């Protein structure tokens, strides 16, 4: 029993539209042809032959010739920094960045300050999203109180307050005992558990991926087994407790192998990849530029190839950006001192299209499937373009060329590891439940006829 994405909290309302002349591409429906999309009260009413649809009453007309209409993306993993670090991002700026990236929904992590570990906080955030969020926004609560990894939070109460699931993301749940209790408790409360997999004992004071580059730079490295051993542990616990969990941001070949083994054994485990791990390697860190510092870290070309293969094969279920805004003064410091994380919402699709689709490494259809599949982690309807489906549609200009960061960012922060990249393709408009959540400034739309 899936819910619609627009049931999450946002300030928008469902609307009516006619999208005319777009190439409609939805790989899940085997659809790739020119269609006029008729949207009535938030839902797709009809996919008509080009030029044959009539504008519904009170609807906006969108002339979309030359654009591709695809299911809008869903990001299961963003940091909106509200509450506590609004100088980096907040619900308003973060969801504006999401809309500009073609996302119809995001899920905000709970490593706020203080952590989102009480039902009252979850309820307050949802109310705030009703007033400020440009796209539907879901919230998770933490698994442990204060993200200390010791005691479970009131997960049932947070679920009742509307938490979509639970995560201590930013930190691993180090204790196997606590992890096991959380998975057992899931049988009462439901909700997916999202896991940042890392063994702090093995990571030590590491600040980048361990390998040739870390050896050259004299920076402490985080070995890949820090991630893969924890995935193996938690997969075993999921099987043992008949529970469900989602592994966030894989960074290494060994982690992909651990997911493969877990799935073969029948564990209810899903996995996620970020655009930056799919496109960059630890070679970038040679610059000692803290824009390339994130957790998990960038790793070797061999690891990157394994991640790409996992994206293609479906071993990895979805893409999440791990959008992690930080202020300039937290990044303009020596590498070891810098905070970890990069923003990613506004560049996710264009970067993947430029680096993976255009050179023929990954099919466009695969990227669309993985960028929408994150909704299923929370039992939400995966955005799709079909009659009766909620009209969550992104219009993309695949020919557009632009320089990342040259016009600034919708996000309040600018810590992108793609600044200066010449990108091909750009979202022109994002539609949520038939209502326009974003339109590129240069993109003109027709008035109501």
């Amino acid at each position, binding site marked *: 029993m899936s819910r619609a994405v627009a049931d999450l909290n946002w300030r928008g309302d469902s609307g009516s539209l006619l999208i005319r002349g777009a190439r409609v591409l939805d790989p899940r429906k085997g659809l790739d042809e020119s269609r006029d999309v008729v949207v009535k009260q938030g839902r797709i009413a009809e996919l008509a032959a080009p030029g044959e649809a009539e504008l519904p009453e009170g609807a906006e007309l969108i002339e979309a010739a030359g654009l591709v209409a695809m299911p809008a993306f869903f990001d299961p993993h963003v940091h909106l920094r509200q509450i506590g670090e609004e100088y980096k991002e907040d619900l308003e700026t973060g969801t504006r960045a999401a809309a500009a990236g073609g996302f119809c929904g995001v899920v905000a992590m709970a490593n706020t300050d203080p952590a989102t570990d009480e039902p009252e906080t979850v309820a307050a955030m949802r109310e705030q999203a009703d007033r400020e969020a440009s796209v539907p926004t879901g919230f998770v609560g933490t698994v442990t109180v204060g993200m200390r990894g010791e005691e479970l939070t009131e997960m049932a109460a947070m679920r009742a307050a509307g938490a979509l699931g639970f995560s201590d993301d930013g930190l691993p749940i180090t204790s196997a005992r606590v992890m096991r209790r959380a998975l057992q408790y899931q049988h009462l409360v439901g909700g997916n558990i999202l896991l940042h997999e890392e063994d702090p004992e093995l990571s030590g004071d590491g600040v980048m991926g*361990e*390998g*040739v*580059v*870390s*050896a*050259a*730079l*004299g*920076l402490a*490295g985080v*070995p890949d087994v820090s991630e893969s051993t924890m995935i193996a542990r938690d997969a075993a616990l999921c099987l043992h407790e008949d529970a469900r969990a989602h592994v966030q941001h894989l960074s290494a070949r060994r982690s992909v192998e651990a997911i493969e083994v877990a799935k073969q054994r029948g564990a209810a485990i899903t996995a996620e990849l970020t655009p930056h791990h799919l496109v960059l390697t630890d070679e970038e860190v040679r610059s*000692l530029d803290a824009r390339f510092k994130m957790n998990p870290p960038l790793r070797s070309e061999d690891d990157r190839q394994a991640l790409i293969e996992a994206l293609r094969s479906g071993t990895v279920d979805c893409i999440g950006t791990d959008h992690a805004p930080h202020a300039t*003064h937290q990044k*303009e*410091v*020596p*590498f*070891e*001192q810098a905070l970890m994380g990069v923003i990613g919402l506004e560049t996710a699709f264009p970067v993947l299209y430029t680096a993976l689709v255009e050179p023929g490494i990954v099919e466009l259809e695969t990227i669309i499937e993985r960028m929408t599949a994150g909704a299923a982690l929370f039992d939400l309807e995966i955005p799709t373009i079909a009659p009766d489906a909620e009209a969550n549609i992104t219009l993309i200009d695949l020919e557009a060329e632009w320089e990342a960061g040259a016009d600034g960012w919708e996000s309040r922060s600018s810590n992108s590891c793609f600044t200066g990249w010449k990108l091909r393709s750009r979202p022109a408009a994002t539609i949520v439940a038939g209502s326009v959540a974003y339109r590129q400034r240069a993109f003109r739309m027709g008035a109501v006829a």
Partner: protein
Amino acid sequence: MRDLLSIENLSREDIERICERAASFAEVGRREIKKVPTLRGRTIVSLFYESSTRTSASFELAAKRLSADVVSIKAQGSSADKGESLKDTIATLSAYDPEAIVIRSPLAGAAQLVAGWTDAAVVNAGDGKHEHPSQALLDVYTALERLGSLDGKRVWVVGDIAHSRVARSTVRAFGLLGAEVTVAGPPTLIPPGFGEAFGCDVSYDLDALGSADVIYALRMQRERMAESFVPTLREYAVAYQIDARRLGARQLLMHPGPINRGIELAPEVIDGPSSLITAQVRNGLLVRMAILYEILAGSERPRPVRGVDDAIERIDPEGAPTIGEPA
């Protein structure tokens, strides 16, 4: 050369030119008045975020022998102690228009960042575990002084490779001058990928140490026991200490200092005839004079020196100074 940030971005020619210059400064040290006017009127800021004896002292002395004005700042008691960011500190110091900033930091990449924030030339006097280029230059200068050429010579660097910025710079410098370098130490203290990163051999024992022309021992710190890198310093010494038994008569011994006597080096070899350790310290002064000369006087594009004209421009037409305290 604009800055000296690392050995990695130097060529063999750069290193040889600096060594030749250092040799030419040896004569200055033998004069009664050990000073030349080369850098008169230039200001050099020495900014040390870590304790240091020989590096800070020799840079300061090198600057003074070249007649530069030196301001030495230690992190303790400075505004860094009060939480000022590196960028803000550099902006503050740059406002005094120094020609060069010599910086030592516990953080990798600090010198490189500073170079992007200031017009002054920047000398990396050690950044985290990354590089220590002036040490490597004095190392190869000292070895060259004894051996004439390093082409085809075998150099063994022994000890805690993982935590050593000296190793990262000196392995590269010896390699650039044609030496074949082997790093040796406990497997826990040689990071994975080191051999590939530096194009050197890796050994976990000293069985083949006899083939070395130069043995370069590194400092072994006591903290490494607590972090389980080695069980005890005694066990480390048994496997890796350079003593009279391991040091052959024809082999040269080097060490960056400060020495832990009886741990990485047995007392009898430190002051023995094969030891270049004192020569390293002495040459450190000459090489650091050569480095300051290279970036401040030897540069192909000398940086503009602020003169009287600039000062006049800063006074507005009414004649009131725009900068300064009210009368």
